[in-house]
């Protein structure tokens, strides 16, 4: 068997992993930082998706121009919810957080069905992102290459921000030891709002980018929740790098498994997750 097909599959798996990374990194950070379980995370991703669909289809915006807006609107809306609702539950039990956020996810599903209907939303991507070309004998999808570039760029930006900015230092401190960070005078809540907005914005961006690969309809907010939770738990709470590694690993292993052992197709992602969690209950790069 030539190597070409395998590289193609690996490449596609990595691109899929980047999508998972964008969708889940925000949840990992907020969960790690405030112990806040936000099951409505994918609702913000869905919002980003609908922003892009509305702008391209109804107002004729080019696809790429809608992406920053998908990010910003998801981030802004999430801050509104954070201030109105989430904030009150930081000290409440995790079960109350589950109930609140699953309630919001339910509402988002119904609102999306009401506003946009139940139909699959098509998205118009620019022609240079469509189709495929041959790269060193491997057939490469243009859009997947774009996804990988986006994933890597955002990973780089986040790493730079977390490692080299003042905000990043505060964020790391708050994730490591929230009480100590407060004691040192760090505005943990303030840092959290920014991290929350950033995370939801990235989810929004992920939602917009996901349409081309997995489609978009009103059930998105619940349908991808499981995948996002898997990435977060396998990667480790509060770890950006962990989410990146976990998402790439899951994307690639899923593809390889389906290529070589299609009979195991649906089992694979769960088997991998359980194996990793038994080996490292705190996730690949988690500290707790």
């Amino acid at each position, binding site marked *: *068997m030539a190597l070409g*097909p395998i590289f*193609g*599959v690996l490449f*596609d*798996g990595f691109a*899929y992993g980047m999508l998972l990374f964008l969708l889940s990194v925000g949840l990992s950070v907020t969960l790690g930082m405030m112990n806040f379980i936000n099951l409505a995370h994918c609702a913000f991703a869905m919002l980003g998706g609908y922003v892009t669909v509305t702008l391209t289809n109804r107002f004729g915006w080019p696809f790429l121009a809608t992406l920053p807006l998908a990010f910003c609107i998801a981030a802004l809306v999430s801050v509104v919810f954070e201030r109105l609702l989430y904030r009150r539950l930081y000290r409440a039990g995790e079960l109350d957080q589950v109930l609140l956020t699953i309630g919001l996810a339910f509402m988002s*599903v*119904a609102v999306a*069905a009401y506003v946009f*209907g*139940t*139909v*699959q939303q*098509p*998205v118009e991507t620019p022609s240079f992102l*469509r*189709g*495929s070309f*041959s790269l060193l004998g491997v*057939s*490469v*999808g243009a*859009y*997947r290459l774009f996804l990988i570039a986006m994933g890597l760029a955002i990973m780089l930006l986040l790493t730079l921000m977390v490692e080299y900015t003042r905000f990043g230092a505060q964020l790391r401190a708050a994730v490591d030891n929230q009480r100590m960070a407060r004691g040192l005078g760090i505005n943990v809540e303030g840092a959290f709002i920014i991290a929350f907005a950033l995370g939801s914005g990235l989810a929004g961006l992920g939602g917009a980018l996901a349409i*081309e*690969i*997995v*489609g*978009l*309809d*009103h*059930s998105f907010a619940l*349908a991808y929740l499981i*995948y996002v939770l898997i990435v977060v738990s396998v990667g480790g709470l509060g770890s950006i790098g962990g989410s990146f590694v976990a998402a790439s690993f899951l994307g690639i292993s*899923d*593809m*390889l*498994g*389906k*290529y070589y052992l*299609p*009979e195991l*197709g*649906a089992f694979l992602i769960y088997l991998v997750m359980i194996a990793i969690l038994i080996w490292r209950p705190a996730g690949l790069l988690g500290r707790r």
Partner: protein
Amino acid sequence: MHKMLALLGSMALAAMTAAAASAQGTVKVGVIMPYSGQFADLSAQMDNGIKLYMKQNGDTVAGKKIEIIRRDTGGVAPDVATRLAQELVTRDNVDILAGFTLSPNAIAVSKISAEAKKFMVIMNAATTVIITMSPYSVRTSMTLPSVGASAGMWAYKSGLRKAYTMVSDFAPGKDAEAAFQDAFKKAGGEIVGAVRMPVANPDFSAFVQRAKDLSPESIFIFVPGGAQPAALGKAFAERGIDPNKIKIIGTGEISDESAVKNMGDAALGIITAWHYDHTHDSKPNKDFVAAYNAEFKRNPDFGAVGGYDGMHVIYESLKKTGGKADADSLVAAAKGLKWESPRGPFQVDPETRDVVQTIYVRQVRKVGDQLLNVEFDKMENVRDPGSAGKK
């Protein structure tokens, strides 16, 4: 406890006879579908078909007012469907049970239909056996085996000799796979490989690559409607499968309007066997599509025509019985009904109560600047290959 239960049982019996007597003047139709959740869009289209038919034909037939009561199962939930059907029968005193997007739910309600003696109109669910599970049911959609077998026969007829099959790993997928393989092999073709893919599968490229490695002459595919057809179509394009060299054959979900829109040019060349498309060229269909667009601002699909024809069966049967809504009269009236539906000639098989219709072979082609399913071949009077033999 025993005595109490016996007492309650007799109360139930009394209530039941009272219920049967109460429904005069109106005929109540209980519609059970997953209005919410993953299958909501298909149900919405079916519901639109029902609404349009009632708008065009009035809500009174044979002196009876038709009243629709809608109930949501939320997805694959035969336990919920059973309860909803029980409640519709006992609480709302419906005369007819209708809807049924999903086979497991339809199978469960068939038992209620048989037990409570209620006429049942299956407007979508496509598993062959459903129709045998209640003597009072009629189907107005299609069965996957009939479509899959048509695709297999056509594939051989068109000169293809080798095929690979890719289907979703659940009952409808296996039905479609078996029907295609049987028909194709019986005609003399060879199946060079097969793969079953997880039902919830967001990304198909690994499976497409597997198929491509064998470079078969043709690939038969079945995946459920929704997000997956577009994802699969794009994966074919990305993995460099050229529909002009490797024929891609599927059932109608693959080239559904929204799927084709999502795929863009990647959809070009896909061949499907199916019973309905909004581009079908006939007077009844043109009128239907125009009215549908005026009402709902979108094109009808197979779900819509299933709901529309289902209402036609209910209306015509009631006309024949003069408004009598008991299951025996209605099912007797429905057997053998024949008319020109938007999808083409339609008949309720007098033996099996299943649908007899034309299956069209279509290809996605560019018409103007639109990608459409263009019919280029058809098979008339197609019955389900399983139930056609049986009586």
